């Protein structure tokens, strides 16, 4: 058969959809939305990959996974081979397969996407990881000889876990310090169960522990111990503490009961499992009419959580239009399917409450779009006299996170930018403080899981060079 015919034949297989829960059913439960591929579906999807010699998908991956390489193993039914290939570059595949914005990364560059739909790389990565976790043999990647060097990783989110996973394989001793009582950072407190089951985060952290990474929870670096104290015990320190400072709308009435930052709303629901109150002890207001302010992934997570907490109405209030929504396409789609109502071109001006302090509504203004602003998106402009009131009993403010100063303020020698983010070399993660690296949201401002992992990768390479060659 000629190559042309092979290509033509392959293109006939349509992109395989992951089976998922019915929107009406899932909008009321916290179980994961997609069920994942079966081995048959995965192998069928893997067959669509044409194994480009110069794979563009790989250029779109911040941690440079050998994408055609692992897909080839899946196609052949060698799922252990697939996970080994992924592990060469990524310690958290079950997470990335679920939360990466593949449409603007690997899949966005897939050559098949030019005429047809791209290979479902994210779904396949997720399949390989899930298969290994649930059905695979107990295997671990090979580890280098011990170097005797010690690295402290502050923060157990995606950046920190990546650094830890990389450096432990290179033979260094790694200890992760986590402020909360469970490791995972935003993966455990922020991203909801229905999008990323906590059991999976625990398993990925458990995998690192099996490799020899020590995880010390309940360690608030900056308070329980300072970075300078860590430098006395460790050869290098990586700071991946995340953004971690809620931004409020700064409008009147934000003190009313029922007004939450997305960080609080999601932490209560996810980390503390408030959705299972009173079986778990931490409560969360179960709003009947909930408005989430903002248009990113966190806003989608909050609005969808509200539905699962029993809301009759769950609004997304966003000051721009559908086209400007910064959330991952799949998240917007899922939110729409589940019945989240979008109020576009709408901006809140004040919250309203009753005498007992409970939230009763929000006054909003209509907006129209003007010229593009610094972010390249069209700037929303208020329409005078367009005030109207939306009745709500719960508000979730999800307009981004700033830089939490708890660690940075207690660390002399770190240089910060005007927003309080740590200044670090974008190619190496080196900060202005000797033997200290940083990466993820505390450097870039709030971004995505995979970008934090990419930053972790660059930093771990630089830390390894420093520990090996002294620079």
């Amino acid at each position, binding site marked *: 058969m000629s190559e042309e015919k092979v290509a033509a034949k392959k293109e006939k297989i349509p992109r395989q959809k992951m089976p998922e829960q019915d929107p009406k059913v899932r909008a009321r439960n916290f179980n994961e939305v997609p069920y994942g591929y079966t081995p048959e579906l995965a192998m069928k999807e893997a067959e669509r990959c044409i194994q480009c010699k110069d794979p563009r998908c790989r250029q779109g991956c911040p941690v440079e996974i050998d994408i055609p390489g692992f897909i080839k193993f899946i196609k052949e039914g060698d799922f252990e081979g697939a996970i080994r290939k992924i592990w060469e570059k990524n310690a958290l595949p079950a997470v990335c397969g679920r939360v990466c914005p593949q449409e603007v990364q690997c899949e966005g560059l897939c050559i098949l996407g030019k005429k047809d739909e791209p290979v479902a790389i994210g779904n396949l990565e997720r399949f390989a990881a899930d298969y290994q976790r649930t059905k695979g043999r107990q295997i671990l990647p090979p580890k280098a000889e011990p170097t005797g060097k010690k690295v402290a990783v502050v923060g157990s989110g995606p950046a920190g876990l990546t650094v830890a996973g990389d450096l432990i394989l290179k033979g260094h001793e790694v200890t992760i310090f986590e402020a909360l009582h469970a490791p995972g950072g935003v993966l455990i407190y922020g991203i909801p169960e229905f999008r990323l089951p906590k059991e999976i985060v625990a398993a990925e952290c458990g995998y690192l522990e099996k490799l020899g990474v020590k995880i010390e929870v*309940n360690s608030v670096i900056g308070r329980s111990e300072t970075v300078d104290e860590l430098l006395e015990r460790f050869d290098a320190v990586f700071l991946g503490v995340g953004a971690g400072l809620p931004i409020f709308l700064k409008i009147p009435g934000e003190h009313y009961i029922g007004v939450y930052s997305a960080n609080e709303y999601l932490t209560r629901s996810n980390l503390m499992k408030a959705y299972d109150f009173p079986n778990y002890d931490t409560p969360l207001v179960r709003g009947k009419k909930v408005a989430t302010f903002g248009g990113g992934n966190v806003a989608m997570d909050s609005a969808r959580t509200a539905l699962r907490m029993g809301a009759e109405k769950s609004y997304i209030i966003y000051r721009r239009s559908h086209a400007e929504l910064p959330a991952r396409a799949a998240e917007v789609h899922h939110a729409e399917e589940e019945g989240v109502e979008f109020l576009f071109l709408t901006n809140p001006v004040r919250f309203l409450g009753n005498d007992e302090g409970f939230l009763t509504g929000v006054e909003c203004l209509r907006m129209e779009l003007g010229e593009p602003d610094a972010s390249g998106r069209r700037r929303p402009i208020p329409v005078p006299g367009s005030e109207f009131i939306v009745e709500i009993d719960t508000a979730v403010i999800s307009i981004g996170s700033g830089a939490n100063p708890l660690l940075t303020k207690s660390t002399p020698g770190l240089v910060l930018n005007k927003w309080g983010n740590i200044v670090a070399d974008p190619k190496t993660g080196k900060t202005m403080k000797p033997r200290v690296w940083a990466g993820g949201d505390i450097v870039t401002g709030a971004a995505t899981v995979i970008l934090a992992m990419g930053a972790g990768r660059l930093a771990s390479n630089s830390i390894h060079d420093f520990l090996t060659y002294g620079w």
Partner: protein
Amino acid sequence: MFEIVEREEMAQGTIISNWIKAPKIAQKAKPGQFVILRANEKGERIPLTMADTDPAKGLINVIYMVVGKSTALFKTLKVGDSYLDVIGPLGQPTHLEKVGKVVCVGGGTGIAVLHPITRGLKQMGNYVYSIIGARSKDLLILEDKMRKVSDELFVTTDDGTYGHKGFVTDVLDKILSENRDIGLAVCIGPVPMMKFCAKMTKEYGVKTLVSLNPIMLDGTGMCGCCRVQVGGKMQFACVDGPEFDGHEVDFEELNLRLRSYLPEEKLAYDRFKAAMGHTCACKS
């Protein structure tokens, strides 16, 4: 795991003192700072300001009132049992300095928080007037410990069963009017007590510190749950506090927000009492 090595019931069993093995925290903790505790995997994260520490033995002391399910659950922990998580020290330490004469006012379990601060102020060389109050004599705690670190100690009870009959503000008024050279007041207790103390010290123009106890979650400034208005600005009690200028705090707002989960708290506590076979006739 954080083991309880000493346990004492105070105020008719309504207030519990625990000495907990937490060497790292004991090394670092300063007066005014707090810890977050969790009893078990399903438990809430409960913030408690430390009442004392023993760095040599690696121990910290927390004293709490039993007010709901989580504290009732804490109460069931005996010597030898452990908290699952203890996180800290958190928050800003009290700024201790010599100002001359100071007055320290404590109500209820606030006295436990007040004690190490009072001791610190005394060690700095201040002349310390202390006023401690409770609803009734058998609910008063730490009188002896407070007496040791005060130059003059005054006790009030609402029902007059011990000391002055009335409120701590009655005695505060007297001390402030007789000593116009008092440079600092520290008032820690229930929100209404702190509010009225701060109102009074403002009239006398005496700088006043209060220690706030809003609902908290992470304790590291990440969630904004503990936001309070201080001087018209939003502050997070967990990282900017827990101590603030009492003349600037919006106590009304603090009080409202403390009521966020009253129905949920009642539900959880009722379920817990039913499960524990609670049979007494108390209404709560």
